[in-house]
């Protein structure tokens, strides 16, 4: 009813319009009624999701080699659960992803606000440099960070006593021993947050900001009550992006992780070299479920905020 009124067309008129369209010649966007287009869509979906479905299905395969379907079992979930190293890697990954998400979202949002709100010399250059980690090949970034951490590590490690030595000793304790990986993840994921939030802010009507101040709000009140609520969908999207980027990163992590600190993707890689056993499928399935749940929760949050 309300949409009818909003369109301002009486129902009868709209119906006849609909009939007109369906009898007319098919346009390029009428994909729903063409068989070959439907088939193409089907193929795309199969290519995208069949491997993932196979991965999940074979996590229930009762076979050590995991090549042919042998029968249903959930025992490999138990095997994975009892694999201390795998669980530790998973916990590391989730911890890193969580820390990275929080820090990258804050830094990314701050960067986006800076670029949106202010004018300063070399702004365009600064904006370009911010987006650089998105386009730099991961392998280069990995090597660069490896060299960086090796140098600073060697320098800081040369102190055998005093405050710096004490500072160093902090980083042997969990979760601070994950610091180098986390820092690396923040470095490559915050530009993604910045880009997403920046795009969101581009649609902001600056008169809203002015109206808020005109109505008596301070800069902080304006930020809290007007700008932040507008930014929120961008923040959630950016945070999700940072979380998934961090969770499944392999290349950069591979270069920045020490022998004692292993993340899930790196661990899986080392295990796969000895053949894919169903417990890896099981652990991967759990990871997929965690990511899906996080996404759904974030989207729910966004929707409930709006209503």
């Amino acid at each position, binding site marked *: 009813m309300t949409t009818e009124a909003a369109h301002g067309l009486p129902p009868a008129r709209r119906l006849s319009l609909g009939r007109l369209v369906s009898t007319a010649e098919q346009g390029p966007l009428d994909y729903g009624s063409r068989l070959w287009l439907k088939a193409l869509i089907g193929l795309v979906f199969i290519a995208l999701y069949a491997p993932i479905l196979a991965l999940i299905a074979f996590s229930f395969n009762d076979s050590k080699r995991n090549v042919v379907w042998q029968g249903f079992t959930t025992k490999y979930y138990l095997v994975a659960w009892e694999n201390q190293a795998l669980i530790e890697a998973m916990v590391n990954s989730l911890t890193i992803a969580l820390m990275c998400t929080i820090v990258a979202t804050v830094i990314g949002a701050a960067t986006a606000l800076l670029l949106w709100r202010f004018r300063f010399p070399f702004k365009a250059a600064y904006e370009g440099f911010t987006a650089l980690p998105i386009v730099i090949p991961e392998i280069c970034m990995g090597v660069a960070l490896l060299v960086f951490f090796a140098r600073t590590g060697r320098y800081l490690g040369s102190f055998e006593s005093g405050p710096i030595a004490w500072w160093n000793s902090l980083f042997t304790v969990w979760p601070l021993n994950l610091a180098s990986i986390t820092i690396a993840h923040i470095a490559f994921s915050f530009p993604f947050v910045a880009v997403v939030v920046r795009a969101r802010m581009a649609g902001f*009507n600056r*008169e*809203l900001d*002015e*109206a*808020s*101040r*005109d*109505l*008596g*709000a*301070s800069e902080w*009140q304006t930020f809290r*009550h*007007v700008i932040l*609520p*507008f930014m929120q969908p961008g923040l959630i999207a950016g945070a999700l992006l940072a979380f998934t980027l961090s969770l499944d990163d392999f290349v950069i992590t591979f270069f920045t992780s020490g022998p004692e600190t292993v993340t899930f993707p790196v661990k899986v890689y080392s295990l796969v070299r000895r053949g894919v056993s169903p417990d890896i499928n099981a652990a991967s399935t759990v990871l997929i479920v965690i990511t899906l749940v996080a996404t759904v929760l974030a989207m729910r949050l966004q929707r409930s905020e*709006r209503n």
Partner: protein
Amino acid sequence: MNNQNDAVVSIRNITKMFADVTAVDNVSLDIERNEFFALLGPSGCGKTTLLRMLAGLEKPSSGEIVIDGENMAQTPPNKRPVNMVFQSYAVFPHMSVEQNVAYGLKVGGTPAAEIGPRVAEALEMVRLGPLRGRMPDQLSGGQRQRVALARALVKRPKVLLLDEPLSALDAKLREQMQLELARLQETVGITFVIVTHDQDEALSMASRIAVMDRGRVCQVASPQELYERPATRFVADFIGKVNLIDGEVIGLAGNSVLCQADGLGEMALPAEAPVAGRIAVAVRPEKLKLSAVEPTGPGLIKSRGTVRDVAYYGDTSNVFVETPAARELSVNVQNERRSPTVYRRGDAVWVSWSPEDTLILTE
């Protein structure tokens, strides 16, 4: 000045420069308490910049803005007793109608117990009570504008600023809102300052109008005075339609000035101030009369002519008459009867008007 005590806003020698462009050029204005004041001018004349300086959204390069007895030229917008209705309305999209109106009171620290009744009162004033729970995307343009109005009025400002408030509305709604704004101003008794490029809007709503051009104020006057006694060619041309004829003063005859108007010959015009040299003779199209035979009357200014074009508007028609010396005059004819005298291209006619309806413009 004796009206200084009545002025709620005194603008003194305000100049605003953007880089090397002077947007507002040494403007001084007094806006009186409880008046409906309009800033009128073509786009780029500096009227919006002036309004934004009143709100505190732009800082003047020099000069004083005295609001309610205090110089506020450098005061931030949240510390001024003025509120604004923005051109885009700037209704907060994530807040309901009620929350939008309550916002200014909430951030200003008004006690919670007071907020509810004041919001209800403001919503009642703009007749939005039943829509209090709606979100802005469920409102029409006119309703959103009412929200913006209520949101500003609920703060009980000393001055309400309106930046082209009707430009986004369609013609019918605009006319209705013009009336409503004028009535609202009378009810609440707050000084309204409106910025507009639409002369009809300014003439129909405002009690006084400042006409601006290229950063300067050309004339401040009541609507009637602006229309009937424009001070400059620009004002005469900008407000309504006008026939502007270049001419020269050639002598004096009693209380009248003898002018040589290009293409119309000599005419004796009443002069209010001493004039000399090059001038412009201005006469409004509706002051001109058309007739088939030579009109008679004492002192009437008249000329023979040929109808060039007729523009029919329903209630009136504009007849363009070319005089023998190739001077075109626009004559506005009221279509008072159903079958009015029809003028056709090529008709020979007489144009005439009274010297009292003629103005001499020197600048």
